[in-house]
């Protein structure tokens, strides 16, 4: 210890560390963000007359939510719901069946290099566009209706699940693979007893999660003509039937919450 202590030079100030340490970078970001905000907000032109008209509509929409009308369009709603649900089930099952081999092929530690390349390319293509854009193209090719929606959701399931399966397989414990192989197990036995048993619990949760997402998406792709409850909702809003629209939205929220709780329950049980 230093015996000759200097006189304390006033109270010491402490400032907390910043998220961005370099001062010039921090100020540059703040200035840039400010400039951008001014430009961006300036370029939003709002038709205030139309907005003030809209407030009346908003009130009607809100009162529609308080008194949703389930009955007068019930047959349309029922049809839409059945379409959405069947589409979701078929697309999830079909997507999973295709995603399993593709995911297996896209795992570096299982598949040969040429297969790895092909499968990763398939995944990249399947994930490139949002469902709604894929739905537009499929509707143009396959005609209006649930079949286009089914194909859209299948493709997005393949993109989503194959990638996650492949990433999971790449992270498995290699010693188990070696153990099965050392007993003389062939390729499929290794996949069955060493790979699948490690990946399966998480995979079941992911499938449940994707089912949940698929239902949400199926309520949207109807807007571009791919069938399902989205088409019914779009029609209701086009006719300004806010009470029927509110009923549809409440049903969607209800089913989504149900799916979310169910998939959460499955994930918890499987984990």
């Amino acid at each position, binding site marked *: 210890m230093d015996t000759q202590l200097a006189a304390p030079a006033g109270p010491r100030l402490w400032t*907390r560390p910043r*998220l961005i340490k370099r001062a010039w970078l921090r100020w540059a970001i703040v200035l840039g963000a400010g400039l*951008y905000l001014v430009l*961006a*907000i300036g*370029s*939003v*032109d*709002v*038709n205030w007359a*139309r*907005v003030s*008209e*809209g407030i009346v*509509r*908003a009130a009607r*929409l809100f009162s529609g939510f308080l008194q949703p009308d389930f009955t007068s369009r019930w047959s349309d709603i029922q049809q839409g719901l*059945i*379409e959405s*649900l*069947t*589409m979701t*089930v*078929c697309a999830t*099952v079909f997507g999973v069946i295709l995603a399993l081999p593709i995911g297996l092929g896209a795992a570096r530690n299982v598949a040969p290099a040429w297969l790895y390349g092909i499968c990763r390319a398939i995944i990249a293509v399947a994930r*490139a*566009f*949002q469902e*709604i*854009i894929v739905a*537009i*193209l499929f509707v*143009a*090719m*396959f*005609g209006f*209706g*649930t*079949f286009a929606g*089914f194909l859209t959701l299948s493709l997005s399931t393949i993109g989503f699940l194959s990638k996650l399966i492949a990433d999971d397989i790449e992270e498995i414990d290699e010693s188990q693979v070696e153990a099965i192989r050392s007993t003389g197990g062939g390729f499929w036995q290794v996949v069955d007893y060493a790979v699948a048993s490690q990946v399966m619990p998480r995979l079941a949760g992911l499938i449940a999660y994707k089912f949940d997402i698929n239902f*949400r*998406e199926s*309520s*949207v792709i109807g*807007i*571009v003509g791919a069938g399902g409850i*989205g088409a019914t*909702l*779009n029609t209701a*809003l086009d006719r*300004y039937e*806010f009470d029927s*629209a509110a009923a549809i*939205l409440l049903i*969607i*929220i209800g089913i*989504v*919450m149900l799916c*979310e709780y169910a998939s959460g329950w499955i994930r918890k049980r499987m984990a």
Partner: protein
Amino acid sequence: MAVLLGEDGARGWRLLTAEQRRWRWFAWLALVAVTVLSWRVMTQDTIWAFVSDAPRQAQDIFGRMLPPRWSYMDRLWQPLWDTINIATLGTLIAIVIATPLAFLAARNTTPSALFVRPVVLFIIVASRSINALIWGLLLVAVLGPGVLAGIIAIALRSIGFIGKLLYEAIEEIDETQVEAIRATGAHPAQVMSYGIWPQILPAFATIAVFRWDINIRESTVLGLVGAGGLGLALESSLNTLAWPQVSLILLIILGTVVLSEWLTARVRKAII
């Protein structure tokens, strides 16, 4: 796991017991039955002539799409700028609204776990379960078509997302640090500012940037329902069957999404 004894006394090994296998068999049967039933209901209105015609249609469409009409680019800069604005302003509004909601929803900061928390949790769930496009449909019906409807649609959808991730982050903070600040006699606002906020700041920044990335994707298609941006140009090109313009717009969307993903990855790396 089950060990079986064969007739000759040899021991066999199986992954599942007989009862487990029976259950699995029924579960698979039920799954197949539901799928077949769904398939039949789903395809009863399908016109198979259109489906079998699809490869020819696809060839036709892609033939029309190529090459993209590059000169159309001049008229896409404004929608592109709008798209970025919808995503960014929407994310900002969502952050401003979702942050206080997250503090109200987190178990350790909520003023009342009995009354406030369930209400806020319901707001978060409702916002999350309605897709941005559906919010867009509603808002276009209310506010009229335009960028404003898009911004609010993105904001409403993002509130639930940001709120949920943020309140989970708040619930995972280290309470000892909060207690240390409180022990110095700090005002609740100071506890918030010095004890809680620094702990969730990295999570906060990551969540915001992550949601911005998703919002860029969603805002490219919001125009399909009239809420401004690139989707609006896409919709009008589709309606006039101008496929070379459609392919150009799809390329722009892809480019924007890839760019925003790259930017997000950079920012995330810088934060973590």
